């Protein structure tokens, strides 16, 4: 037995018409010789056919198979919600002056139903900046989705929003969960789950819009557009927007609010670029660039602790050995799948070791006060522009040591490193306008 509410703003696949007057359309639409899935928008291959002659979509199979026997049923979103005062906001925290400026800008854009990018550096508290706009939207009886391509972001966010918006019913949706669907004013879901909706949301907040796989998936981008009401709007959140979004901002096709300063009000450290021509060939003979050796010896002499980032796990032992030979000793290597990783990171936090050689950005939230960062081989493709900006953001997290050095050794100049420096310069320009200090 299907509930009317289950159809509000959704597209439910059924093999026969329901009795509640929901409107259906063929799940797979035939256009000439080809067939297009109406849930995920992908075109079927000529081989996507069952033995009984039916067609089926392989692209959105994880949400339950759609065949040419299915129709997608919907009831237009009626916003049948009980209005709650202040949108159910129960959060009692305070926004900083800088956060408040950004929050008001976000609120203005939501009120005028304008698509908007909130470009906030890591550590700026972007979730809380959205609260005033979210509270306003929910108080209007809007239906809101807060979505991320990453399930871990959704799982981390849901309890925070449940606390901050205690007065409003919320649903959390992600693949492989046991909870049944519930019709709620606020839905927190993975971007994949938006494929089940149609013209449902007045506002969609897209968290980590630059994260894989959303940035490269036309299917997921379409899911956001389809799930949003035609008169609705979306708010994109990111610390490192990709080229497409930056271009839309430059062409003034997308409104943007910057939060360029971290909570302590200091600018981001710029990446200091140094050429290390053919450093990989030197490494074959256990040799590292002399400028790098000189710099690291200097750090050790001054008791300046540092992180050395290298491109690949296989580079770790080789570079570790070359450092040993150069008399730079006492550090350890660590990578994402290292079983001793928590212990090594803890040793670095406890300041019992002077440096880490690593391939990854470590966990979110892991900060080392007064740290220097060195990247060897920053021109390697593993270091995307976003990753380079995030690595640089490791420096100066703490209010006691808000600045520090970020040095990047490259075999050649590359676009990614140049773009990362450009992004930091751009954010710092915005930051100076807001009174940021070096």
């Amino acid at each position, binding site marked *: 037995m299907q509930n009317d509410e289950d159809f509000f703003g959704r597209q439910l696949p059924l093999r026969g018409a329901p009795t509640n007057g929901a409107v259906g359309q063929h799940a797979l639409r035939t256009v000439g010789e080809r067939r297009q899935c109406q849930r995920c928008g992908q075109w079927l291959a000529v081989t996507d056919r069952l033995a009984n002659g039916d067609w089926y979509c*392989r692209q959105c199979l994880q949400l339950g198979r759609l065949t040419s026997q299915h129709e997608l049923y919907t009831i237009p979103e009626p916003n049948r919600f009980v209005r709650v005062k202040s949108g159910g906001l129960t959060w009692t925290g305070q926004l900083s002056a800088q956060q408040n400026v950004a929050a008001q800008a976000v609120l203005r854009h939501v009120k005028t139903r304008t698509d908007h990018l909130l470009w906030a550096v890591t550590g700026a508290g972007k979730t809380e900046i959205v609260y005033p706009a979210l509270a306003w939207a929910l108080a209007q009886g809007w239906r809101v989705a807060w979505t991320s391509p990453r399930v871990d972001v959704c799982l981390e966010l849901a309890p925070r929003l449940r606390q901050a918006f205690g007065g409003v019913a919320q649903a959390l949706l992600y693949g492989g969960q046991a909870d049944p669907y519930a019709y709620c004013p606020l839905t927190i879901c993975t971007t994949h789950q938006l494929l089940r909706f149609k013209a449902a949301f007045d506002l969609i907040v897209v968290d980590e819009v630059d994260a894989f796989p959303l940035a490269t998936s036309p299917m997921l981008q379409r899911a956001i557009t389809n799930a949003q009401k035609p008169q609705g709007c979306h708010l994109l959140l990111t610390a490192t927007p990709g080229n497409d979004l930056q271009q839309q901002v430059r062409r003034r096709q997308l409104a943007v609010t910057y939060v360029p300063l971290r909570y302590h009000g200091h600018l981001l450290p710029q990446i200091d670029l140094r050429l290390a021509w053919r450093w990989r060939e030197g490494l074959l003979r256990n040799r590292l660039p002399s400028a790098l050796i000189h710099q690291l010896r200097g750090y050790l002499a001054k008791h300046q602790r540092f992180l050395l980032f290298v491109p690949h796990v296989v580079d770790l032992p080789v570079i570790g050995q070359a450092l040993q030979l150069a008399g730079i000793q006492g550090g350890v290597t660590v990578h994402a799948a290292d079983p001793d990783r928590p212990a090594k990171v803890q040793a670095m936090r406890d300041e019992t070791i002077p440096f880490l050689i690593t391939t990854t950005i470590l966990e979110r939230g892991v900060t080392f006060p007064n740290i220097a960062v060195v990247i060897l081989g920053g021109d390697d493709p593993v270091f995307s522009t976003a990753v380079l900006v995030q690595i640089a953001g490791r420096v100066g997290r703490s209010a006691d040591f808000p600045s520090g050095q970020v040095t990047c050794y490259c075999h050649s100049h590359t676009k990614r490193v140049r773009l990362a420096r450009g992004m930091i310069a751009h954010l710092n320009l915005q930051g100076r306008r807001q009174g940021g200090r070096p």
Partner: protein
Amino acid sequence: MRACVWCGRQLQTTLTLAQIWQFTPIAQATVCDTCRQRFTAITSQHCPSCGRQQVDETVCLDCQRWSGDRLTNHAVYVYDSAMKAYMQQYKFQGDYALRVLMQAPLAAALQRETYDVLVPIPVDQLTWRTRGFNQVTGWLQNQPFQQALLVRATHKERPQSAKDRADRLRTPQPFTLAPNAGQLLRGQRVLLLDDVYTTGRTLRHAADQIYLGGAKAVTSLTLAR
């Protein structure tokens, strides 16, 4: 460039000169080496009755409980987590394209069997309409087979996979013989083909009917045990 039908990774494929010359799109799906190697083939050290992988070739405990109701089953792969993941997507999510993964291994296994008539375990009408395919015949390419068995559309209160062993063993005979089964089976050596050997109940029910149809001998082959 083509993508692996299971993991979606792009494959480096070498086209033959003829393919380039004719410029025809390659319609059949492909599987990458990693996906091919995910499954564990059963060695010669298996239970002689049910085909289960063992360290020796004695009759396993489950089979000893079937005393007197012997069947000789061979199985291609161990029913491990990789095989479960495969069956989940192929059979339960209904991703018919994944049939190609098993076509070559099953063809090789059929080569090793001695039989006159191949009889796949059928699916009922409702499954045919909703799933849209028989998961067993999907693995066959050009091998001739006979639909000598019919299956009653049992209104299942629970799917087979949700039952425990005792439930399964009590399952009543679901099969009947097709109208022309007598001609097809009389005096023949029959090989039954099924997806997974779990308790052996289904295959024994099928074998009973095939014998009633006049077959001289019945053995079976399953993809997994």
